[in-house]
């Protein structure tokens, strides 16, 4: 296949937008002091892999789907690849590969179905999606409303000119967690706000992802993490992965669209190695935490599940 064939212009028409499908790139780092969230692909590893498979720069804009996929019609030739959540992929009704580059001819319809494992699929197209951006990014930020609105039926998406060749692979291994999720965390900075029982509960109890979860954060139900009575903390900066404890003992793990500051104590932070698992944890998923050193080595002994 010649690269020049993919350089022809291509428009993508949305036939079925799915539950929540947004354009995502690497977001808007560097503007947090203005209250602008970082945003960007919630599963950064899957985002980069999808782009590599179609020969794009790693941070090119892709589509991020939520649970039930998306259906697109292509006006021109393109290479596409789907990573992230595992879901059936059909081209004009015929099954095609997940996690590999797929060549689409003009007029063909690509249907990405309901995720069988995980939550968010990443659909990259050679050349990348090219909607208008704001503050240096085309990412849709659900907290602040920056970026284009989620996809709607009938809308068209421009595609940029392909800059590279699709990767000639048959399989790109990518781990999708199934069942229980174990997240590596770094304690602090405010773990002294927990009771000693609360500190222990954090790494021994099983939590459950609540339905109120979204791109802003994962709400966790189940065990309550006891907070020592210490008054109130003034608002302070937050990072992706920050775990806040609410006054009722509930936990929130902040994700890409998190507010840039917050006032409830951050008692631990999920290591970036756990970001993909957070993005792919569906409501009802069991979550456990284990403490790691700053270099990523496990710190808890084998007794961490003893509680």
């Amino acid at each position, binding site marked *: 296949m010649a690269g020049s064939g993919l350089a022809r212009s291509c428009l993508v028409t949305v036939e079925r937008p799915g539950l929540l499908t947004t354009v995502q790139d690497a977001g808007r*780092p*560097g*503007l*947090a*002091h*203005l*209250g*602008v*969230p*970082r945003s960007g692909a919630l599963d950064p590893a899957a985002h980069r892999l999808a782009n590599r498979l179609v020969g794009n720069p790693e941070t090119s804009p892709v589509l991020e789907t939520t649970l039930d996929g998306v259906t697109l019609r292509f006006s021109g030739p393109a290479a596409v690849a789907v990573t992230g959540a595992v879901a059936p992929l059909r081209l004009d009704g015929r099954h095609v590969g997940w996690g590999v580059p797929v060549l689409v001819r003009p007029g063909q319809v690509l249907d990405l179905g309901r995720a069988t494992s995980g939550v968010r699929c990443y659909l990259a197209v050679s050349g990348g999606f090219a909607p208008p951006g*704001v*503050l240096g990014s085309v990412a849709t930020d659900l*907290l*602040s*409303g*920056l970026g284009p609105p989620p996809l709607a039926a009938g809308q068209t998406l421009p595609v940029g000119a392909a800059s590279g060749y699709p990767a000639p692979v048959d399989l790109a291994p990518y781990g999708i967690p199934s069942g229980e999720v174990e997240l590596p965390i*770094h304690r*602090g*900075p405010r773990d002294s706000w927990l009771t000693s029982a609360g500190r222990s509960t954090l790494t021994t109890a099983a939590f459950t992802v609540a339905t*109120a979860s979204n791109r*802003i954060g994962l709400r966790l139900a189940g065990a309550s993490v006891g907070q020592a009575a210490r008054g*109130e903390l*003034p*608002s*302070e*900066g*937050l*990072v992706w*992965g*920050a775990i806040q404890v*609410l*006054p*009722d003992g*509930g936990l929130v793990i902040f994700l890409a669209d998190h*507010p*840039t*500051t*917050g*006032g*409830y104590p*951050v008692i631990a*932070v*999920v*290591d*970036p190695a756990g970001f993909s698992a957070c993005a792919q944890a569906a409501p009802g998923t069991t979550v456990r935490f284990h403490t790691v050193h*700053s270099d*990523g080595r496990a710190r808890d002994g084998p007794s961490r599940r003893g509680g």
Partner: protein
Amino acid sequence: MGRSALLVELGDLADVLSLHAEIERRRALGWAPSLTDVIPAARTILLDGVTDRAAIEQDLRGWTVPPAAVRDGPVVEIPCSYTGPDLAAVAAAWRVSEREAALTHARAEYRVAFCGFAPGFAYLTGLREELAVSRRPSPRTAVPPGSVGLAGTYTGVYPRSSPGGWQIIGSTGACLWDPGKEPPALLTPGTRVRFVDVT
């Protein structure tokens, strides 16, 4: 804070503003180029994108930080209807009637200390220490745009619907964030603010 961020704890807001000015001055000269975000807040500065934690900690300890100059920004008037769902709770905490609570809030003069939380959200100082109120025990999942809220001695206005744990005492029709304007935020650090009671 996690593998790649550092939370610097300071004595008060004045110390924060001074160290923040010094950090930005040195960043402009090439200090700590891996940093992606520097977020000043009430008593802390968060440095995100830290690769060499030990070197940054050593630098911060070694600096002599001059006090930051207080700039007098423009005055912005924000019309406020004091009819928020938490006005009664705030009035009770202040041991006054709801009407008196509204007047007390509208009488104070405010200044933007720093921005954060969401685009266009500014943390306003100006309420006296004894009027500090606590946040709600559980945040609301959606606070309407224009909501005027209190947390501690800070006042803030929600630019758009978002989750929020502040005590909502009123609402305004003022546009806090317009990406088509430069700057997009109505309230930027140093801006002086008055709330005009239109209840």
